[in-house]
Structures are given as structure tokens and as C-alpha cells.
């Protein structure tokens, strides 16, 4: 079966600084992959490359067997199929929650305004934010904003979700409500790539955990394997540091 997403020897550098140095990974339909690694290891860059927000220098990225990283390819149709949620929520501050969620289905998918709004209201209700639909983003808590950001992506009915440290800007007591949404997505079979510092969550939700170090994937294995029996020395060191910091 063709993998949902295939990264083949992906390279990316900013100027002379090489950030991704040959990333290869296969992601099956409905698989959840968690990328962990220290700050600056290239997690965000990797996800941004998959969303075509950054163009890669070498290698290729396939979605359902189709090369989406070919130079000159129009990125917009691809991005409609791949949702992305960012660390800093980047909701549109001049629009209400409802407008944030219904804008892209209306403008990009060509749904009627009414259709996109009623669909958006359903999504907003599903994420427990019905009473906030007509408020503006800056009137919401961080957790609520992040749930709106997820709803905004889901409104496009994406086949894949990229979640870049979506809880790291949140107060600890707000993390749970956002992670609940991700659990729900998994149970519905969403293919997801997530960058995270929440080891406990990676352990619980990921089918595979991948350790990224200086732009390379050092190892990728099931959470049980990864957290109890890491093979690579760097991974052991990283996990030890995390354990000492009390985050595992």
C-alpha cells in the first residue's frame, strides 16, 4: 500500500545553515508520529516543509504517492489537504471565531457562506466553544484559542494534520483540553505528525516516536520501545535530561 506521506532524503538549509540533513520516513494512513528532540533540532522546519510553507532543497515529499515537493507545483491544493496548527495560535485577530473557522471553506472550497458557517458552528460546538463563536480571539483563553485553531484547520476536512507544539504556549491546566481534541482526532483515524515536548502525551498517543537530532532522525520506534529501550546514545541522553527535568 502506498504510504499516506513519504519523506525521501529531505534536505533543507537556511543560507549556509543546514537544518534538515536527509530526513526519510514513511507514514501510513491513520498513523500518528511524534517528533521529539531538543530545541533547534528542526522539528518545526520539518512540519513546515511538509505543509510546503518552506521549499526543500533536495529529496522529495510524497502525499498518496504524488510528489508534492516538485519545484513549480502550486502549493494551494496540497495545503487544502494538509492542516497545520502552530505553536503560537495565529488566529486572525480581526475576525470572530466563527469567521476564522468558516473563511477558508468559503473562499477556498467555494462553499456558500451559509453552508460554511453552519459547518463551522458544528465544529466549534464539537470542540466545546459554542458560546464563544461570536467572540474575538483575544477574548479567549490560550486553550480556547488553540482549540479554535484546530477547528479552523479541521474545517477544511484535511487528510493529514501537522501539529507543531500546540500545547507549549499554554498554561499547564489548559493543556488537557487541547490534548483531548487530539485524542479524539486519533480515534477517528486522522493521520498526524506532531512535534511535541509532552513526553507523556507522545507515549500515549503516538504509534511511533521519532527522535530528531541536528536535522536527522536518529531513531524511530514504538513508544514502549522508545522510552524503555532507546538504542541510540543521543536518545538516551535526551531522555535522561527530560527525566531529570521531571517531564517524563
Amino acid at each position: 500500500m502506498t504510504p499516506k506521506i513519504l519523506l525521501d532524503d529531505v534536505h533543507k538549509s537556511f543560507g549556509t545553515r543546514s537544518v534538515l540533513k536527509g530526513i526519510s520516513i514513511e507514514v501510513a494512513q491513520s498513523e500518528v508520529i511524534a517528533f521529539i528532540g531538543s530545541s533547534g533540532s528542526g522539528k518545526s522546519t520539518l512540519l513546515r516543509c511538509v505543509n510546503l510553507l518552506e521549499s526543500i532543497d533536495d529529496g522529495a515529499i510524497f502525499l498518496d504517492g504524488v510528489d508534492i515537493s516538485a519545484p513549480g507545483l502550486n502549493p494551494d491544493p496540497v495545503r487544502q489537504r494538509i492542516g497545520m496548527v502552530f505553536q503560537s495560535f495565529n488566529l486572525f485577530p480581526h475576525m470572530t471565531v466563527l469567521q476564522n473557522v468558516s473563511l477558508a471553506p468559503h473562499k477556498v472550497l467555494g462553499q456558500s457562506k451559509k453552508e460554511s458557517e453552519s459547518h463551522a458552528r458544528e465544529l466549534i460546538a464539537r470542540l466545546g466553544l459554542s458560546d464563544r463563536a461570536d467572540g474575538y480571539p483575544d477574548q479567549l483563553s490560550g486553550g480556547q484559542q488553540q482549540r479554535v485553531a484546530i477547528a479552523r484547520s479541521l474545517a477544511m476536512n484535511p487528510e493529514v494534520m501537522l501539529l507543531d507544539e500546540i500545547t507549549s504556549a499554554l498554561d499547564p491546566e489548559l493543556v488537557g483540553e487541547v490534548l483531548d481534541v487530539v485524542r479524539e482526532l486519533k480515534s477517528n483515524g486522522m493521520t498526524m505528525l506532531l512535534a511535541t515536548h509532552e513526553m507523556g502525551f507522545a507515549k500515549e498517543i503516538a504509534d511511533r516516536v521519532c527522535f530528531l537530532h541536528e536535522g536527522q532522525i536518529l531513531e524511530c520506534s514504538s513508544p514502549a520501545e522508545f522510552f524503555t529501550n532507546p538504542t541510540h546514545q543521543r536518545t538516551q541522553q535526551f531522555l535522561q535530561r527530560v527525566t531529570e527535568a521531571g517531564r517524563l
Partner: protein
Amino acid sequence: MVPEMSDHSGTSSLSQDSTQRPLSRRQVFERRQKRRSLLIALASSLAVIGLLVALIPQTPGWYKVKRSFFNGPILDETFPALLRAFVKDIQIFLWCAPCILVLGMLLAICRNVRSPLLFPLRLFAAAYTDIFRGIPVILTILLIGFGVPGLGMDRPWNSPYLWGSVALILAYSSYVSEVFRAGIESIHESQRAGARSLGLSTSQTLRHIIIPQAIRRVIPPLMNDFVSLQKDVALISLIGPIEILRQAGIDKSKYANFTPYVGAAIIFLLLTIPETRFVDHLMSRERRRTSGTAVR
């Protein structure tokens, strides 16, 4: 599918009982402080004004200045005509302003396009703003106002109103485009990333996400430019139209007295002072909104 997550964010009950509470120590202190500052400001202003009023008439030339600049009867006589002429200024302002806004925005957008196909557009916009920002408005008015009618075109096309207005539009659209451009560039890159990741195209992102936010941000500096425009309309008098400054000049010659200029200045102030106060108010509101409360 996701379980309903209720939000226990009960709107605070604090705000209700705060009105009934007696003034806090800080509030009492601040009120007294405020009253004292007000008294001091009032007293010092009165002292300065009083001094000026007492001293200026002592100067040797005062009676002459008073007669030729602050001449009550002449002011009474010329003021109505000045007011009527000022209507012309307002008309010119009113048809220039929308043209300036549209042209300024188009130029700002042109300077933002990254497509190589549209590079000539970008180059043109950059050259345009460089040129018209670099020439004093008055020169633009003179060059266009005397130059273009010299082409000898027929009736409506040789009007100084037309070409004076065109000169103002050219000059001010270059200023305004810079304001818009700064506004567009001030929108954080993450807004663009958020929009593009949803599949919005470059132009959809510009139109629905970037420009609406940029406009909100630049309203105060824009209004500043329009207060200046209001005043610079008077420069058109140099190429012929009888607007307020021209009318004042005519009256000056007629009465051999400068009072009509003072009258014109008063009319401008009646309009521009409220305008600038309003802009200041908008600006300080924006500052408060973006930078939190003032620090002592």
C-alpha cells in the same frame, strides 16, 4: 465526537459591587493629586498669558501691527467672503481624498508583489513614490498646474482646479502608499503562514487577512496625512483657483491690510484643531491598546 468541554468562565461578579464600595486610600490620594495638578497648571497658564497680554502692547511697533493684522472692522467685512471661498477648499479636499486612498493602496500593493512577471509594476510604484515624496508639494503643483495646461487642450481639460487636484493626488498618494506599505509590513509573518496553510492563495491572504489588519493599524497616521492635505489644498491658489488663500490675497490688496490672512488662518484652525485633537485621541487609544497601561 469530541466530548463537550464546558467553559467555567463565569463572568466576574467583582465589577458589580465595586461601585458601592467607598473610595480606596489610593483613589482618595489620586483625586487630591489630580486636583492639585489642575490648579497648578491653571495658575501657571494664566500667569504666562497675563504677562504676554501686558507686555506685547508695550512694544514700539504694536499699534501698527494691530492695525494691519488684527483689524476688527476689516475682519468683519472680509470674513464672509473667506468662508465662502473656503467651501472650494473643502470641495477640492473631498474629491482628492478618495482618489488618494485608492491610488495609495494600489501603489502599496504593487510594491508588495513578488511575482517576477509583475516586476515592472513594482519598479514603477517604487519610482513613483520616490519621485513624488522627494519633491515639495508646491513644486509639483506649479509644474503640473502650469505645465499640463500648456499642452493646449480644450475647455474642461485646461482647468487649474483639475490639474491642481491632480498634483495634490500625485503627491499625497505617494505619502499614503508609504503609510499603507508600513502597515502591511507590520503584520506578523505568522498571519501569512496561518492563512497560506489553510490553502488561501497569495492574493486571498492579502485581501482577507493582511490588508484589513493593516488598515486598522494605520488609521491614525493616515488621518494625520489628511489633516496636512486639508492645509495644502490652499497651495493650489498659486495656479489660479479662487479658494480661501487667493481670496485673502485679493482682500489684502483691496484693503492694503493683512487682516484677511489672519481671518483665513482662523478658519483653518477652526477645522484642523478638532481634527488633530481627534487623531491624537485615536493614537493614544491605539498606544494604550497595544502597550498596556502607562507606567508612572
